[in-house]
């Protein structure tokens, strides 16, 4: 396996396709950026697919090539961690529509020019279908899927679309549909991008001058939803930034302002504005019940998959009641389901942070499934 070019970090594959999309269009070919860690065992039963969140990427446990920072889930993935390359064959792929090596608006279309807004609108299910193509390419038939936030939506979609392939599924801080409030926040972000004069209808790639201001504002608005009020108050309160008194102007007087500005600015270096439009749209369209006749339990009818769901008590973006309604549907379908609401002050972001109980639950759940 060491000499197999399919495996390792910073990989990319272009599959001939075609990929039939929910929106009716066909994408061909399909390029997917991905990483693998660990070794696929003899009967190919130790595969774990990790699904990333909205602005995540495939660098789950390796240095990010742009930022130089460690992977985004090194607390969960690594030696001695619940997901361990010593035991597991770990795959993490950049989602369809994103900008870290998978086909998306920044990729060249057949005419050699970037797709930009000509890229077809995609869904969470389209992302999952593309991942399934990648796993076929890697020789993985049966797998465990793990993901938080939008990653959790992909895990749910995997279990519903490929029930015979998913042995176990871990869904953290997620939901089976996007609420009106979720859609509303995303719309603010999209409007910020499209209102930026540098957006130019999405055709900004040649200029080397992307709509960074709009994207930064979108990120700032979204970032607030990832935190909790208590967490923000504890971290910043009304403290002023590098000054003794209010400036009576519109500089970043408050620490929370300069924190958000920093979050927005550092984001534009690593993310494409059009990808942000497409992926938030995919999330907004997501409604697993609607895809299954309006009844969520129908999505899991007859499933053999083991499920584990975790929510956080301060997460108001994907609150506990969203996880509970999934659990109720799983119970109604007779599925083997576990669920726990964990306590954390960090809001939605808790799934990326140091919450020992989360790791304990995931570790126990995976080991009990023979992983």
């Amino acid at each position, binding site marked *: 396996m060491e000499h197999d070019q399919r495996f390792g970090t910073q990989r990319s594959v272009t599959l001939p396709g075609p990929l039939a999309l929910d929106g009716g269009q066909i994408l061909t070919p399909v390029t997917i950026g991905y990483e693998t860690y660990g070794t696929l065992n003899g009967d190919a039963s130790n595969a774990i697919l990790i699904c990333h969140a909205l602005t995540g990427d495939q660098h789950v446990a390796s240095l990010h090539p742009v930022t130089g920072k460690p992977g985004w889930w090194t607390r969960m993935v690594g030696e001695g961690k619940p997901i361990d390359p010593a035991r597991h064959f770990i795959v993490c792929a950049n989602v369809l529509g994103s900008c870290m090596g998978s086909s998306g608006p920044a990729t060249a279309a057949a005419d050699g020019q970037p797709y930009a807004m000509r890229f077809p609108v995609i869904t969470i299910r389209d992302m999952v279908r593309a991942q399934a193509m990648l796993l076929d390419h890697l020789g993985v038939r049966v797998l465990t899927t793990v993901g938080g936030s939008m990653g959790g939506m992909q895990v749910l979609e995997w279990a519903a679309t490929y029930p015979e392939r998913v042995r176990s599924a871990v869904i953290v801080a997620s939901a089976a549909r996007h609420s009106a409030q979720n859609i509303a926040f995303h719309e603010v972000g999209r409007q910020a991008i499209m209102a930026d004069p540098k957006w130019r209808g999405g055709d900004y790639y040649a200029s080397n001058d992307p709509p960074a201001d709009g994207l930064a504002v979108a990120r700032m608005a979204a970032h607030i939803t990832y935190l909790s009020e208590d967490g923000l108050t504890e971290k910043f309160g009304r403290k002023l930034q590098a000054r003794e008194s209010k400036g009576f102007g519109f500089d970043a007087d408050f620490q929370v302002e300069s924190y958000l500005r920093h979050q927005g600015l550092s984001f534009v270096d690593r993310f494409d504005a059009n990808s942000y439009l497409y992926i938030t749209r995919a999330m907004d369209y997501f409604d697993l019940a609607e895809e299954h006749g309006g009844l969520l339990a129908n999505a899991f009818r007859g499933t053999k998959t*083991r499920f*584990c769901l975790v929510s956080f008590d301060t997460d108001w973006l994907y609150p506990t009641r969203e996880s*509970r309604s999934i*659990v*109720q549907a799983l*119970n*109604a379908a*007779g599925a*083997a*389901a*576990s*669920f*726990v*609401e*964990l*306590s954390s002050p960090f809001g939605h972001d808790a799934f990326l942070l140091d919450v020992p*109980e989360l790791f*304990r*639950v995931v*570790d*126990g*759940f995976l*080991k*009990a*499934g023979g992983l």
Partner: protein
Amino acid sequence: MNGQALLALRPDLRIIADHVAPGSRALDIGCGDGALMAALRDHAGVDARGIEIDAGNVASAVARGLSVVQGDADVDLAGYPSNAFDYAILSQTLQTTRAPDKVLDELLRIGGRAFVSFPNFAYWRVRASLLWGGRMPVTRTLPVAWYATPNIHHLTIDDFRAFLKARAIVTEGAWFLNGDRLTSEWAANFRAEHAVFLIRR
């Protein structure tokens, strides 16, 4: 059933474990850290599911490979379809629910049979404590003072029998415990510290 895990079980749980049919499906409501579920799974091949209110207990149960959902017997049973389980198990929890009658209805809807165990508030030590001491009892099975007890619907064995009779619920089995020893049915309402009933519609 046999094995060390069974011997380590609380006496009422051991009775339940001994009477759940191998290979059946059981829902343990208020399953704690999953001790009974693990014993049922490991020694009788029971497909056991659990509900537990305490997050720490849920994490422990999930970590031992059990399917446990954090939830509350008073509200979360409604989400389970009818006849989804062969047994619904409610051990030492009935007296802590807000609406015990509705919880029992749900148990018998979800499971074909239900095990219910509860402390007997007509046990002679409890009576003696009130009669002679004039104080709310604090005993081995009721170890918490009046202001901190989770028990909000105190009941006796005779209360439970009357409840079953009034609703035409069938008793398939009844076990009466004093400490970890079974006592006879004779004067159980006076002599037993707690009781285990196996009931069905």
